[in-house]
């Protein structure tokens, strides 16, 4: 850990795994090149040396990785599966949604698997290495889907994910891997399923998660110079979804903008709008709005990519539109 340079989001993920391996002999890591190579993003760097026989390279088959995870979970182990990119987890989709998600409900045997999905866009990554598929997993009962936005949450939520007896889809945003830094790792955290007020406001609520929290916060700073106080809610966990915190925030502001890096059809932002209009219709002083990526595959070109995903600028523009209603 580079103490003076600060702890990155990626460091936090590595530290959480080291912590779990140290504390619980049932924990092991399985994934492509996670062993000697230390993982595609170095999230398991040196862990194979530190914990011999517990950080294992898998074949290039997400299907096989997940099948092994389910089998070892049945036998009482607690596997951490690293997908190289969230995009490729769809190759193991059947094992995740049909086997892991339903195991406990079919057999009463817990399924404590943590699937780490490096997800989300970075410049030039294109259609196969940028996708946000949290909503697809959130659709399935039996899965917990986490989307930490900060170094602290990356650490504490991964620890909690590993400790949970349910299969967890841990969506770690690649854009945040090196950008975010913290001084130290947290000793306590909000529980999973509880959203965080990332910034307090009174004029409008932006509900978002993962990397978009930072775009929303920057938009809020910009709008603050125009006299608007924007409240930013970081969901942290998209399933379970903390409707209470969201509705309470809309009660304070009267206006809702949901921002997500995923595509616009359905998804987390739509789910929030549905819940707020259903449970808090009388709180809305304007039609709730959503801002998502464009409904096309993620483009390679950096300029196209910047136009494809929501940014602080487009979030601020959407917020201004809503504030003027």
């Amino acid at each position, binding site marked *: 850990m580079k103490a003076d340079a600060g702890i990155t989001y990626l460091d936090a993920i590595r530290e959480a795994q080291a912590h779990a391996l140290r504390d619980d002999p049932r924990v092991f890591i399985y994934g492509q090149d996670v062993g000697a190579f230390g993982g595609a993003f170095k999230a398991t760097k040196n862990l194979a040396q530190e914990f011999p026989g517990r950080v294992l390279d898998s074949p290039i088959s997400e299907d096989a990785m997940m099948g092994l995870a389910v089998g070892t979970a049945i036998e009482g182990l607690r596997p951490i599966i690293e997908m190289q990119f969230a995009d490729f987890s769809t190759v193991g989709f059947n094992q995740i949604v049909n086997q892991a998600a339903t195991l406990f409900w079919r057999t009463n045997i817990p399924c404590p698997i943590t699937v780490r999905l490096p997800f989300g866009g970075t410049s030039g990554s294109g259609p196969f290495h940028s996708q946000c598929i949290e909503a697809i997993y959130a659709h399935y009962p039996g899965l917990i889907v986490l989307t930490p936005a900060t170094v602290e949450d990356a650490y504490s939520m991964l620890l909690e994910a590993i400790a949970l007896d349910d299969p967890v889809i841990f969506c770690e945003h690649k854009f945040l891997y090196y950008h975010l830094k913290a001084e130290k790792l947290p000793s306590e955290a909000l529980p999973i399923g509880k959203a965080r007020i990332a910034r307090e406001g009174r004029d409008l609520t932006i509900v978002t998660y993962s990397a978009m929290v930072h775009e929303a916060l920057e938009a809020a700073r910009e709008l603050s110079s125009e006299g608007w106080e924007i409240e930013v809610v970081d969901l942290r966990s998209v399933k379970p979804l903390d409707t209470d915190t969201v509705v309470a925030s809309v009660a304070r502001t*009267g206006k809702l903008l949901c921002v997500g890096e995923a595509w616009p059809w359905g998804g987390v932002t739509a789910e929030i709008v549905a819940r707020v209009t259903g449970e808090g*219709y*009388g709180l809305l*002083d304007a*039609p709730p709005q959503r801002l998502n990526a464009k409904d096309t595959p993620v483009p390679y070109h950096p300029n196209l990519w910047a136009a494809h995903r929501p940014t602080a600028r487009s979030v601020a523009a959407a917020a201004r539109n809503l504030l003027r*209603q």
Partner: protein
Amino acid sequence: MPQLGESIAEANIVAFLVKPGDNVVADQNLIEIETNKATMTVTSPCSGKIEKFSAQLNESYAVGAVLGQIEATKEEAARLGLDVASSKISDTDRVSKPDGNGSHTRVQPTVRGLPVPANAAGASYLSPRLKARMTELGLSAADLSGVAGSGAAGRVTVEDFEKFIAQLEKQKTSDASSMRVAVADAMRRSWTRPIAHVGMPVCLDPLFAFRKIARPKPGPALCALRALAVALAENRKPAGRLVGSKIVHPSAIDIGFAVEAEDGVLVPVIRDADKKLLKDLITPYNELVELARERKLPVNATGGSIATVTNFGTFGLEWATPIPLPEQTLVLGMGAARHEPRWDSSKGQFVPVMEANLTLSFDHRVLDGGAAGRLLQRVSELMSKPDQL
């Protein structure tokens, strides 16, 4: 003049791009126009021959104004759904020639555009939150009339509303009586309809003459009430209520009359006023007035009436435009009596007569000025023969 865009009401004619006699095709540019925002063109709604332009150069015309006429073929008119007069004939044509052009039979939508914009905005738009807050405080849309909205197109935002409420709290307020609140609610509901008014003077000399001999004496308001009952018994239609696309006819000629009570108005009802003579109505009428003033009206003495009479003349008023009760279509008003000169052609001079204004306020959805005028004429006529009422 076509609809040129939101908030554009009229446009100026800059140039005619074709002249009468020219053949034009649908969507061809015909007239260049200028609004305060941009220069645009009016295009041809159909193919045909320009018959004439009625619009003048450099004149301004409102949206919807006729700018000229195009002579279109029957087929073209049918396509546009404009052949109303000949529609029956073209129906037979179609039957006899089933292999005719299919475009004739294409169903045209009767409503174009959404009746309400899907993204409702503007001064009349109340957000769910505003509605919820107003419900919580027991307010209605009418209470916001004094609030200038800061939202899109002047809508009152919940913030405007909270400021308004905070402002009210700084001023002295007192609770409105339940009677006041009830009247306010009734008037507000009634006012959602297009209420129109007609009026005319009625000569009261015959009534005053009749009062000299009649025991007990009928008052002008009761005389008007009885006359209205007789007139409505002859033709109940004007007292019908419009609900959706149906006229609901009155089942009995029960007429109410307004009695001022403390901080409000009560409306006792005379049941089957068409079936009793004026002289038989006087005692029950006087009893009801007393009971109303004491606010002791029995339940069956109010409600269910089909029209109301209000004698605003008792306040010295000659004219008023009363509002009918929300569940009624008509309210007959009576002004203060006063001497007026009236031309007597047999004497060749003005003679003094006792006159009062009769007014009729009505729901314009149910009847028009003509029908309202005829009803008022009939009431006036009946009042001129009080001994026969």
